[in-house]
């Protein structure tokens, strides 16, 4: 696939937000959000319900206007609700909304008339590969099939950035896996950038190479998944060890250890060199898993965060 934005060069990030914020009345749904996602990345946006994920995604798409800051897609500032901003982002909304009394062919016809770069061949070929007849009515489709039709519409729009909001939360485990595999297959061999939100970490772990952790309306952690994993260690240290004695930054200290245990497990942000230099006898260092990393950052965020679902719905 080729996109207009190819000419912009490899250095322009697919997505950049700077001090992006959005307030609903007196509550901030998202605040001071600065991040970058490089072109071609498959980025996971992880956070609990009400963390501000949908708020962030809707500002990226142009459905929502920021209260503060800016969002740019492939180097161009998105203003809410302009054709240029809308053309740059393909969107798979939560729960995969489609018109119930439309056939799939009707949905694609809608896509064709509402998107100048619509790829009908791609859309038809995908339905063919999934053995879903185009004459089926939307209301007769299973949840997994609806998700596939939604994804197909977003892909056929031929936007360089695809935003998927909780794409698998309404699916059963088998359909979840199939859907994510399908997303990966469509990403392979293209320069498409994906931003996929979820409140379940394990769904995204094996598919994503970029990680953004959002909680309480703020970005807690963002970067390449591999680098982030390498930069964090799980240290098992004596209970008496103060944070100041630890190498790097202590992120989260677990309270639950073995009965009568004299040790704590602490997640620290420290590179291996730092760790080796400051390591003391009796400390045990372990690599951290994707899920442990995300959970540590989520758990250290004060609760309760602002629950935006109640406001946005």
């Amino acid at each position, binding site marked *: 696939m080729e996109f207009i934005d190819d000419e912009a060069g490899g250095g322009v990030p697919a997505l950049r937000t700077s001090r992006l914020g959005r307030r609903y009345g007196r509550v901030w749904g998202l605040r001071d959000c600065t991040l970058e996602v490089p072109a071609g990345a498959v980025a996971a946006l992880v956070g609990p319900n009400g963390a501000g994920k949908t708020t962030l995604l809707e500002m990226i798409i142009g459905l929502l206007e920021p209260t503060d800051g800016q969002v740019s897609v492939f180097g161009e500032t998105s203003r809410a609700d302009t054709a240029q901003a809308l053309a740059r982002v393909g969107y798979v909304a939560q729960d995969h909304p*489609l018109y119930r009394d439309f056939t799939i062919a009707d949905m694609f016809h809608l896509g064709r008339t509402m998107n100048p770069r619509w790829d009908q061949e791609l859309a038809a070929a995908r339905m063919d590969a999934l053995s879903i007849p185009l004459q089926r009515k939307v209301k007769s489709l299973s949840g997994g099939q609806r998700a596939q039709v939604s994804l197909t519409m977003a892909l056929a729009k031929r936007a360089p950035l695809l935003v998927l909001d909780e794409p698998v939360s309404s699916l059963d485990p088998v359909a979840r896996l199939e859907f994510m595999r399908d997303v990966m297959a469509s990403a392979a061999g293209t320069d498409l950038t994906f931003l996929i939100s979820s409140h379940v970490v394990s769904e995204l772990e094996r598919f994503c190479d970029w990680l953004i952790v959002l909680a309480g309306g703020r970005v807690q952690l963002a970067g390449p998944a591999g680098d982030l994993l390498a930069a964090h260690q799980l240290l098992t240290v004596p209970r008496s060890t103060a944070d100041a004695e630890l190498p790097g930054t202590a992120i989260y200290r677990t309270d639950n250890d073995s009965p009568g245990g004299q040790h704590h497990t602490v997640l620290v942000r420290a590179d291996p060199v730092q760790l080796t230099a400051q390591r003391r006898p009796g400390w045990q260092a372990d690599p951290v898993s994707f899920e442990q990393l995300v959970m540590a950052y989520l758990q250290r965020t004060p609760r309760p965060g602002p629950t935006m679902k109640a406001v946005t719905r």
Partner: protein
Amino acid sequence: MIWVSWRQHRSQAIGCLALLAALAVYAILVGSSMRTAFGNDALTGCLARSQGTGCPNAVTAFMNEFGSEVNIAFWSVTLIVPGLIGVLVGAPLIARELEYGTWRLAWSQTVPRVRWLTVKLALVTGGLIVLGAAITAVITWYRAPMDQLTGHLQHNIYDFEGLVPTAYILCAFGFAVLAGLLIRRSIPAMIAAFIPWLAIRLVVEFVFRPHFMTPLTVQVNCPPTNACSTGISSVPQATGHIGDWVLGMNRNGFIYQPADRFWPFQFIEAGIFVALTAAALGATIWLLHRRAAWTA
């Protein structure tokens, strides 16, 4: 967008055509026999020559046979039909998208939502104007003989002819589209739009319409042998001219609006309802444009 609008409103369009077809069949069946009877009784010439005073028996016979066609109770109920058409078409236009979450799909394609809305509104409004004009044409044709006896400035006749039926439909439609955006649910939006529509409709009809233009006064001028009256199809009319709309009496005579004010009245009343429609639809477009600033 044109195809999308058509596809989403296709079933409503078919429903409206079915309604129109049923009305046309009824109008042709009853209207034809009414025309035949009117011609047989040679009423046209009599009415033109003498305002009906020369042929009271023929008038009475015609009214006995077809008088129920101007039955006030029936047409009073029918006056809500334009409102029902308007709210049924208008309320789901935005509310259904909000109810089913499909706004996220509709407004994330490469068409800004204001354009999405204006194209839809233009096409649906156009369709409703065609429907209103067609309904009005059918009713006007069907009632043409009767109107020669009654004029068409009276309540329940005026409201189904000329420009106002279409304007009533548009106004209910505009209110319902706006209510759908504000309330976000189709059925409550229909109710919320219909009630003010009906209130305004009745206030305009009974409070403002009699004073659109300054009424005239005429001396009571009845032949002593032939008591005259002011009701629909009474011959002879107390004002001396069929179709005058008598508002009341004072010591100088009857206060009335002359029959030839039909078109000025139609333009004034249609203007009021079209202005209300424009205000409601303008507010809807502005609110949808600003919606990104308040909530997605």
